[in-house]
């Protein structure tokens, strides 16, 4: 007897892509929009994967997750400014170096901030959802004001390294180089997460903890230590996502985190709370739908993802991949 994988959600992704092709008509426009949608989806996945695990493991509702996104973007902007000569040069290696430094700084600072946030803000309110919502929302507001103090209230430029500007032209198709980089990075992050979750003991513990944390503790594992690790990793990934998203938009404002949170919540709800695979498929759905609808009917683009969430929940009320949590 072999386990049956649920291929319906990925098939839905393919169906939406094909429906997009039929509605858009022009294949080159469709390819451009599809790459943009995949890049957007993979960046949202990078930002949201940690949050879905945090909820799955400890039932923690962290409304301040956007803070790590904003800090990651601001740190990246500062580092890119510091390395502006390398980022602006024509040398590919110098560009990669500047980009890597910005990404690394965003990961480290957001991760450390995540550690502080978990110990000081989250830990006192374990198991108290209402207090979690209030305190994390309050924490986000305070942190946004601190960002104002540190970086000022103005929009901050976050230019892409020079070799990542512009597009590849293949026939009629124009594919932005940076979007391809975002797709490759997003897939690499997803692949790494899958390896950790499915091939390591830590991953085994995380998957077990999402389903039944009480039983994991009864087996002798310290689930809270595991949770702190996941929280820090999730914050670091959100910081990385924020840096990449800021570069995607080529500017950063303090509202970047709060703006992304709407999409992130849609993605983790669509995916099924605690499911990394669901979060991945949900993020790609959101990215593709946002881009296709934005092109076909810009007036309803804003509501398209809410509509998508409603339709998915009508079909599968606990998300694409429900976690059977106990």
């Amino acid at each position, binding site marked *: 007897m072999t386990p049956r994988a649920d291929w319906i959600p990925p098939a839905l992704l393919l169906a939406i892509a094909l429906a997009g092709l039929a509605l858009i008509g022009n294949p080159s426009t469709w390819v451009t929009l599809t790459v943009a949608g995949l890049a957007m989806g993979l960046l949202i996945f990078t930002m949201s994967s940690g949050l879905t695990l945090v909820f799955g493991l400890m039932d923690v509702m962290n409304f301040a997750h956007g803070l790590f996104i904003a800090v990651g973007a601001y740190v990246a902007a500062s580092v890119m400014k510091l390395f502006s000569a390398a980022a602006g040069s024509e040398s590919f290696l110098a560009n990669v170096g500047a980009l890597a430094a910005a990404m690394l700084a965003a990961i480290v600072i957001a991760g450390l901030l995540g550690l502080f946030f978990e110990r000081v803000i989250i830990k006192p309110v374990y198991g108290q959802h209402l207090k979690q919502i209030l305190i994390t929302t309050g924490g986000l507001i305070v942190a946004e004001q601190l960002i104002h103090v540190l970086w000022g209230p103005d929009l901050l430029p976050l230019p892409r390294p020079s070799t990542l500007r512009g597009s590849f032209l293949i026939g009629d198709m124009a594919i932005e180089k940076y979007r391809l980089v975002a797709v490759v990075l997003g897939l690499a992050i997803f692949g790494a997460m899958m390896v950790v979750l499915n091939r390591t003991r830590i991953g*085994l513990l995380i998957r077990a903890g999402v389903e*039944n944390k009480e*039983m*994991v503790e009864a087996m002798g594992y310290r689930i809270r230590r595991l949770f702190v690790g996941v929280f820090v990793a999730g914050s670091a990934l959100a910081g990385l996502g924020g840096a990449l998203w800021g570069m995607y938009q080529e500017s950063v404002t303090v509202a970047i985190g709060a703006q992304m949170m709407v999409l992130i919540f849609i993605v983790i709800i669509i995916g099924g709370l605690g499911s990394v695979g669901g979060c991945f498929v949900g993020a790609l759905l959101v990215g593709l739908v946002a881009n296709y609808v934005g092109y076909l009917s810009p007036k309803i683009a804003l509501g398209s993802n809410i509509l998508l969430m409603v339709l998915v929940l009508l079909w599968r009320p606990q998300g694409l991949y429900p*976690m059977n949590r*106990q």
Partner: protein
Amino acid sequence: MAGRPVPDALLALKGVHTHIGRYHILQGVDLAVPRGELTMLLGRNGAGKTTALRTIIALWRASKGSIRFETNDIASWQTPAIADLGIAYVPESMGIFTRLTVRENLLLAARRGPPDETRLEWIFRFFAPMKKFWHLPAGLLSGGQKQMLAISRAMVEPRKLVLIDEPTKGLAPAIINNLIEALTELKNTGTTVLMVEQNFHAARSLGDSVAVMDAGRIVHSGRMADLAEDKALQNHLLGLSLESHQ
């Protein structure tokens, strides 16, 4: 009747109280679990048997009293630290990880490294489906097979004490016999077992000693054989204090 002195108790509860919310569930439990024996914890629904097991493993906290395991008073310890002492817990819900395979469930239960092959073969002798469905997600197993997996997890490494909550509940007689055989073998390895059970046939087959709970207290403790022989005592204990629940 409570608190019959037992010379070598691996686990001893004294005056243990447990509150869950505003409910006072355990109301001064005195219980001694002899080393190397299988102790049955019997009692009517709502007597506090499950709460007693969960309090021992600290999934619910004792509000008063002492829980001594070997030389340690573990009443204020955290669950993982208690498990580290060599205590395994099989809850009534079985607590298996449905999205993990049978292999992964057992891998996680083996704290000292990969499961020992000889021990696995020993487990497969009683629970052949575990070998057959080694790579199958545990959620796809039948109810009886899930219970086999839950007990296999407790057996995958040598333990000092195994706490088992109603393992025969809802199972077919053939599977119950299978479980009795496995638990007998586990007992023969010298493992101490504290087991909550409603099935009197299973309790009589397996139990060395017995404690009976009612209304959050131990109301009888003694040898299982004595209780099995004494119909009057059985009727007395199993029908006891019905009025207190009215």
